[in-house]
């Protein structure tokens, strides 16, 4: 077997050149909490590991256009320690903080959670609900796409050879906006979502939902942005009938599998239950702003 190489480029361009030029399998290393497990299980045996943590801004959280740009190597712990971002996007932060243990939080990143492309990734529904954008660098330059366009199937992304996600952008929030994320797991900590739901919404002065985005995880091959669910609550004050319609739209959008974590029927039902609860938390947060 060829020797596995390890590089620590100090610029995005140098990283792209390494990733694009590798004939074998090249993997990006940020937190490593997925990659090292895959390497140990020999499901992934890279020829080249490109550690991006020496590149400027990969560990940075910066204000931009009233929102925040989060570098690809920012850990969950670092994200949660950022008071302004946590205040603006509490749902994104609580979703990210659900990933693994304290130890895993010390390394795991939102970008890695997105690019690992697990349907059950906790941060992804929250990021989709937030309307987050992924900044991508590659051999043909830079581009930015909505995060929901990154995962395409379990373990697979839309990134082309030589491309990697350099940061995630969380946009500015209008007044009276809130977001939230809940997942169902059969225990209280250290587990993978059976169903996850992220909702971001904006209210008007009267408390009517002006805008909403609803996303579900672990109920399809990728996390889903459910427009019908958002439409079910836009223009309402989240009365019981609106919450019923939200739950029904979420359940209808599910295309789950049966597995050891839960049955199809269970996931379909829980998607609606969670959506109701998440919407009410998001609304409570919006009313405080």
């Amino acid at each position, binding site marked *: 077997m060829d020797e596995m190489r390890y590089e620590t480029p100090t610029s995005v361009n140098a990283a792209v050149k390494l990733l694009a030029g590798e004939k074998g399998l090249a993997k990006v290393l940020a937190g490593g909490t997925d990659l090292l497990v895959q390497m140990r299980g020999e499901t992934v045996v890279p020829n080249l590991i490109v550690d991006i943590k020496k590149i400027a801004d990969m560990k940075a959280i910066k204000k931009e256009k009233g929102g925040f740009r989060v570098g690809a190597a920012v850990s969950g712990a670092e994200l949660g320690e950022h008071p302004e971002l946590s205040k603006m996007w509490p749902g994104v932060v609580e979703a990210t903080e659900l990933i693994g*243990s304290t130890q895993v939080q010390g390394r795991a990143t939102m970008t890695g959670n997105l690019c690992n492309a697990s349907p059950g990734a906790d941060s992804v529904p929250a990021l989709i609900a937030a309307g987050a954008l992924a900044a991508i660098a590659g051999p043909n330059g830079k581009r930015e796409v909505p995060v929901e366009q990154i995962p395409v199937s379990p373990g697979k992304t839309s990134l082309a050879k030589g491309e990697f996600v350099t940061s995630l952008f969380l946009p500015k929030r209008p007044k009276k906006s809130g977001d939230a994320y809940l997942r169902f797991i059969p225990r209280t900590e*250290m587990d993978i979502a059976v169903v996850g739901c992220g909702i971001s919404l904006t209210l008007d002065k009267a408390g009517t939902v002006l805008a909403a985005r609803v996303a579900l995880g672990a109920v399809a091959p990728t996390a889903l942005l459910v427009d019908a669910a958002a439409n079910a609550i836009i223009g309402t004050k989240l009365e019981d009938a609106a919450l019923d319609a939200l739950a029904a739209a979420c359940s209808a959008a599910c295309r789950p599998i049966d597995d050891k974590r839960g049955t199809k029927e269970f996931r379909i039902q829980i998607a609606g239950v969670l959506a109701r609860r998440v919407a009410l938390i998001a609304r409570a947060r919006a009313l405080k702003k």
Partner: protein
Amino acid sequence: MSRHHISTTINGDSAEFLCDTDESLLDCIRNELHMTGTKEGCGTGDCGACSVLLDGRLVCSCLVLGVEAAGKKIDTIEGMAQGDKLHPLQRNFLEHAALQCGICTPGFLIAARALLEKNPNPTETEVRFWLAGNLCRCTGYDKIVRAVMATAAELRG
């Protein structure tokens, strides 16, 4: 290509080792530096037995590559007691019988110390959530949590 030559700092002392790209920091600490206080449980980041601090941040050393340690500061269980004088956490683990086989203990101690440095007055719930990534299969968690709470109270004075 030869193995990577890594210069790092462990428990305040400079240290050097050679490693392959795919060697975990845990394997480097144990097999190259022969510091065997840090234990391997699962090797996949689930059990916390290999907990160390990497630049002050609690991590599983099985989920860090040895090559990533270059220029970093690592703290392991070997740096916890000062000579013969046990850290208050170590003493309270003994007094509360918070260990049996001991494999998980170094990880619990490193993780608990990191908690108390961040939060000197944690609630029992905060202790339990912070330590959720440290698995113990013989003592059970109550004695461990009591030892941590007792240490927190002692350190607050």
